[in-house]
């Protein structure tokens, strides 16, 4: 029948067309709750043909479509029984979220209209997440301020007392003792503020790892230096077993994690030892920090990684700890994608570990500071005694020699040379002297005196701005290589090299 044949037929045909092409899903439920009709958008929402849905009640429809895998889940208002679709949020397998609204029909039964609310839902969830994050940050900040207030007050109070003690101390020994105690208080505050700063950076998402391949030994050596004194003072045996492997991580962040673990281990161990070692697990290196300390009861294993967590307040107070070290370690491990774990029993010590990928040794060391003569030059590690009374010139020479990796010692008091030699920081390998010192002492004479006093006499180079032929001839006649001021670095380099390593080439000097 053509749609223009009668006005009524025309109307019903339009309605049928509208229903079929409606973008929203529409279903009609009978008085007894079965689906009598649904448009194609309704069926498409569930990813099944219309014929498969007609005849099902709401509960059956939801069950069926879940079994089909096209519906992932639904949320009913206030957990109401599933008798109607009204108010439900349907979560489809393709990621869409549909909201259902029912309208009652005059004859009984109802019409359900499904609307796509995916975008709105996402925005709302993002808002909820942002709110939760803000609330958590706020709570964290409040905890932070409470903890900071509590923990920083103690060393600060000590400091005030100690400053007073220092001011009124009569004896030098008392003052020194007070100063030492002040130093300890300041270092405690420094540690606490450092930890708080780390947490602040983590909260602000400001830590971006810089991942490279490097030798784990670089960190292990620094840990030994960093904690040896602290462990020794507490009577603990700190053992760090060397490892030769390369790892892929952020050197600074990994060191921060491990130093938090070692610091914790020393803090919570009264007797025995702290052991750091590595073991290969396939493509991972497990770096372990074990101790013979108080241990952690199993019920605290997860909680000790939480921010500001303390097993007991008294313990924390005694150790000046905010309870942040493990939280920082865990959050940094998460940033690096490393697994951080713990095995421990109360009273039987703890073993913290972190798993780090093993790296290719060829790639190791690419992040080292730029190579220079200071690190690997031919003079690196040698000691030069510089005798120069012009302060500016002396500093320039010292700076040059230090850039070449040498240690430099100087003597300023030319009238009491024996005393000056006895206080030198190192045994020189070579002497560099001005010819006229303070206008009256000849560098060549001084070298002779010095070589009589030194454990091991060493060769010397003489510098002079005096180009009088008789002066030059005199210096040369005494067998000293000579450089005319201003001394050029290449010339100094050549003379020093030949004098130290190839004396046979001295005749070729420029």
């Amino acid at each position, binding site marked *: 029948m053509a749609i223009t044949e009668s006005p009524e037929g025309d109307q019903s045909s339009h309605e049928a067309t509208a229903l079929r092409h409606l973008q929203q899903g529409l279903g009609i439920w009978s008085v007894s709750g079965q689906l009598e009709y649904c448009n194609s958008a309704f069926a498409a929402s569930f990813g099944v043909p219309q014929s498969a849905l007609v005849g099902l009640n709401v509960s059956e429809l939801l069950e069926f479509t879940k079994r089909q895998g096209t519906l992932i889940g639904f949320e009913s208002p206030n957990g109401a029984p599933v008798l109607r679709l009204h108010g439900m949020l349907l979560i489809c397998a393709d990621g869409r979220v549909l909201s259902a609204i029912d309208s009652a029909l005059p004859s009984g039964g109802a019409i359900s209209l499904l609307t796509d609310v995916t975008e709105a839902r996402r925005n709302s969830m993002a808002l909820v997440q942002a709110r939760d994050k803000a609330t958590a940050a706020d709570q964290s900040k409040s905890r932070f301020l409470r903890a900071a207030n509590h923990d920083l007050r103690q060393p600060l109070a000590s400091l005030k007392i100690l400053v007073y003690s220092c001011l009124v101390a009569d004896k030098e020994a008392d003052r020194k003792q007070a100063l030492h105690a002040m130093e300890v208080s300041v270092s405690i505050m420094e540690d606490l503020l450092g930890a708080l700063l780390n947490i602040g950076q983590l909260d602000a998402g400001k830590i971006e790892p810089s991942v490279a391949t490097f030798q784990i030994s670089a960190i292990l050596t620094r840990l030994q230096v960093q904690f040896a004194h602290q462990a020794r003072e507490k009577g603990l045996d700190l053992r760090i077993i060397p490892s030769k492997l390369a790892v892929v991580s952020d050197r600074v962040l990994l060191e921060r994690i491990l130093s938090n673990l070692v610091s914790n281990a020393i803090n919570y161990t009264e007797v025995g030892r702290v052991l750091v070692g590595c073991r290969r697990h396939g493509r991972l290196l497990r770096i372990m920090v074990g101790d013979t300390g108080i241990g952690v009861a199993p019920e605290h294993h997860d909680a000790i990684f939480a921010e500001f967590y303390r097993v007991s307040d008294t313990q924390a107070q005694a150790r000046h700890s905010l309870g942040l070290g493990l939280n920082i370690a865990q959050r940094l491990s998460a940033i690096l994608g490393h697994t951080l774990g713990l095995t421990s029993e109360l009273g039987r010590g703890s073993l913290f570990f972190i798993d780090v990928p093993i790296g290719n040794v*060829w790639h190791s060391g690419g992040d080292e500071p730029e190579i220079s003569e200071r*690190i*690997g030059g*031919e003079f690196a590690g040698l000691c030069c005694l510089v005798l120069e009374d012009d302060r500016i010139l002396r500093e320039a020479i010292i700076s040059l020699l230090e850039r070449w990796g040498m240690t430099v010692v100087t003597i300023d008091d030319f009238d009491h040379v024996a005393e000056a030699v006895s206080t030198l920081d190192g045994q020189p390998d070579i002497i560099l002297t001005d010819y006229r010192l303070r206008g009256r002492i000849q560098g060549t004479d001084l070298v002779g005196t010095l070589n009589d006093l030194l454990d091991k006499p060493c060769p010397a180079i003489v510098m002079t701005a005096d180009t009088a032929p008789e002066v030059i001839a005199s210096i040369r006649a005494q067998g000293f290589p000579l450089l005319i001021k201003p001394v050029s670095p*290449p010339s100094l380099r050549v003379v020093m090299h030949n004098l130290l*390593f190839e004396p046979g080439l001295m005749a*070729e000097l420029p």
Partner: protein
Amino acid sequence: MSTAPIIIGSMVPLTGTSANDGREFRNGLSMAIDEVNARGGILGRRLEAEFVDTGNQSAVEVVRAARQLIHQHRASAIINGYNIGPQNAEYEPIADAGIIYIHHNTLVQHHDTVASDPTRYFGCFMGDPAEYWYGQGFIKFLSWLRDSHRWRPRNRRVAIISGPKPYSIVIANAMAVSAPKFGWELPIAPQIHPTNADWREALEKIRVHDPAIVAMTHFHAGDLARFHLQFMEKPLPSLLYLQYGALHSAFSEITGEKARGVITCTVIGLPRDEIGKKFAANYRARFGPLSTPEIGCQPYSSLHHYAIAAAVAGGTGEPGNGEINRRIAKALIDIPYRSVVGMIHYHPTWQAAVPYPDATQDPSLGIPHLFYQLRSPGESPALIAPEPYIEQPFELPPWL
């Protein structure tokens, strides 16, 4: 614009102990100049080489050569292989003249000199990596052998013997500094000896420490051959590394089959790829089957790089024309060049070629540090590291 030829100076040891290398440096530069001229020169101007002999390569001889090239020949650039001995003293007249200087001295002191006054030394470039990388790279190589289970060392001890030259001492120091970082130990500090030493004494001194590795950082082929023959009189149960000179034919001719198993390397050589092989064939076709393209390749590559940079900069500059030469220097840094030795990629601060895999993980951005193991007479040394240049596997030396 001037049509006069552009003078390229070159300070080469054509007499003295390094005369063999000096001849190869001259050959390499001449070949590159001919190729550039065949393409029309630099912006239409032909290149002409001026060689000055540096004899024993002392500071006096090399500085004199630089002055001669600048003042007498008005060289726009000086490009050559290495000169051991001047200790950068030649940088002074070159910096005063404001011209480009590309050498292959393989010295870390180049970094220091350039860093001390980058404005003054803008034109001084080192076309190969510093010798420091030999030391650090060798320790990485050893660690790679160990960690990849190609070799199981008896212990962790490394003994180092050095010659008296700065080059050898720096390599020895670099090995000593790097070794502990990679799990090795030095039972005795690096031993520095004069070149005419009786090496038996040095070997006996380290024998008591029972090292798993003996590394010799002196580089003259003849001295190395003498050292090796004395080592083989009573071999230590150790891997043996001999510095660069062991790659010379002179070394193999003296040591023969006894050289098999020795490890050696170079931070600038010819990778055995299509480009390297083609260059080697052309070089030998021109200079004879006994010529050494592995050495001639150094100034050859740098001359080509210079020609490209000068063309980009808009020309070349004689002494005193620092402005154009500064543009050339910038182009040398900005435009890496894939030469026959691999990628010449100048580090912007060092003004030295970056080595792979020592300083970059990207083989397309560095000159490969090639490790070889010597085989029997008549066989080419086996290229055993690093990836992706490996051609043959490492084998245990016959004395182990």
